């Protein structure tokens, strides 16, 4: 499985990871090795086999739609580097 340099750049954009230009070739070759391993899947005969997403296929625990947790906003926002009036601050989005 061969990737192009642009594929790695595009993956970085999709995954929100800044990729250093100088490391692209190295990342590309290691990803290719992993994809070669993963491509062994294509040898499997999976006609009429349902995909298994989860060990508890089809099971989902449900509960009453009631509020059971306290609002811990202050405790959780203490973890952020930048909070004002209960809001998370981010760099300017609209110029």
């Amino acid at each position, binding site marked *: 499985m061969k990737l192009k340099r642009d594929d790695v750049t595009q993956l970085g954009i999709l995954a929100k990871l800044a990729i250093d230009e100088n490391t692209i070739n190295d990342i590309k070759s290691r990803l290719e090795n992993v994809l070669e391993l*993963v491509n062994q899947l294509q040898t499997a005969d*999976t006609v009429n086999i349902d995909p*298994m997403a989860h060990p508890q296929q089809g099971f989902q625990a449900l509960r009453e739609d009631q509020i059971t947790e306290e609002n811990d906003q202050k405790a959780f926002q203490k973890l952020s580097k930048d909070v004002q009036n209960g809001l998370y601050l981010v760099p300017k989005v609209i110029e």
Partner: protein
Amino acid sequence: MHDMSIASQIKALKTREFSSAELTQHYLDRIKRLNPILNALITVTEEKALDSAKKADRALNGDNNNELCGIPIVHKDIFCTQGVRTSCGSKMLNDFVPPYDATVVKNLAEAGTIMLGKANMDEFAMGSSNETSFYGSVKNPWDISRVPGGSSGGSAAAVAARMTPAATATDTGGSIRQPAALCGVTGLKPTYGLISRWGMIAFASSLDQGGPIARTAEDCAILLNAMASFDHRDSTSLRLPEKNYKDGINRPISGCKIGIPKEYFTGSLNPNVEATVFDMLKVLTDLGAKLVDISLPNTKLSVPSYYVIAPAEASANLARFDGIRYGHRCENPKSLEDLYCRSRAEGFGEEVQRRILIGTYCLSAGYHDAYYRKAQQVRNLIKQDFTKSFSKVDVIVSPTCPAPAFKFGEKSDDPVKMYLEDIYTIATNLAGLPGMSIPCGFVDQNPVGFQLIGDYLQETRILNIAHCIQRETDWHKLSPEEPS
């Protein structure tokens, strides 16, 4: 004290042979001496531990019925601990101090255990050698030039070096069993859903499962009693009747049918590891168990299937680390996009970034069916292999790993080589089955692990067989010489 099993320590605490404060101080002293060499713990919670031990002693002097009251424990740094940094082995969470306890931590605290500290681990549990930790590698106590396994390498090394009698751990593709094998201790990965994942930092949600690492199967059963619970906060938590996992642990195993999968005894398996596993099979037959040849034909596809499903789930789970609400944030972001991309690139290590990229690739438009759907279909085939086998046998046994602990750097340059380390453990996670590793001998002075896989919710059965083996063998009693 540190050479006693938890079962023996419980008796000694009850008869006041020593107090929990004395036991805790003893382990803290060992941690002080050994951790600078082994790097098994990221954080030591000395003050908190001594305070909890005093409370436990007061409870033990009263009418406390909690079996684990006063027993020290180490938590893998993937479990959130209120007021104590939980780094998950990552720079991303270097400053993260959770405002709540994971359910596993809460359950064990309520049972009276004493937290000694937080165990080192591969970053976000992604690794089989502990070399991906932001805090540096853990050293294998049997040979400090070798890896302890991963991702729960700190938990396994701390138990092996007698820095703690027990540790919590997690297993997504072998991360309890493989380090337990490489460090010569006992580790149990329960059935998916038996132990709550709430407060356990997510890697691959359909595969992640917490479990105990200790010295003996009996100790693991005692720990499982406290760790397993239904949790309404985890939608995959199983609601089961209360059970004592120690019940039936002494049951004779005569007539028990043990499956030997032929696919686990080929290819890259080290012949000396194979020989130690065969010695263990002899112990089983001497106890009256019957060996049955079975086939798990899709075994070779378990690693490829896992390396689509786990990175795909990881790429989604780790999207939450955006540099805004918590975790590492880059300096002077030029824009929101720049904040996201640089915070994540700076906060995540190389292996974590690689898995996010693989997961993103496999889930991207045009590749979803070829990779993700195909991997899920293969996952079903793997599960069907086990279902067929468990109609013929009670448990399945195999080596835990193809070879003993390898040297630092030996596989770190080749991710695929590292991934194949988990060839015998991954299928169990894909199917959601319980599995454990117990010590079964040595190859060139390095421990070897023996894996037992049970059918769904058959923890008692594998604990029973492991306990019967440990009554006949001494491998689990051996400890490494103290490194200096």
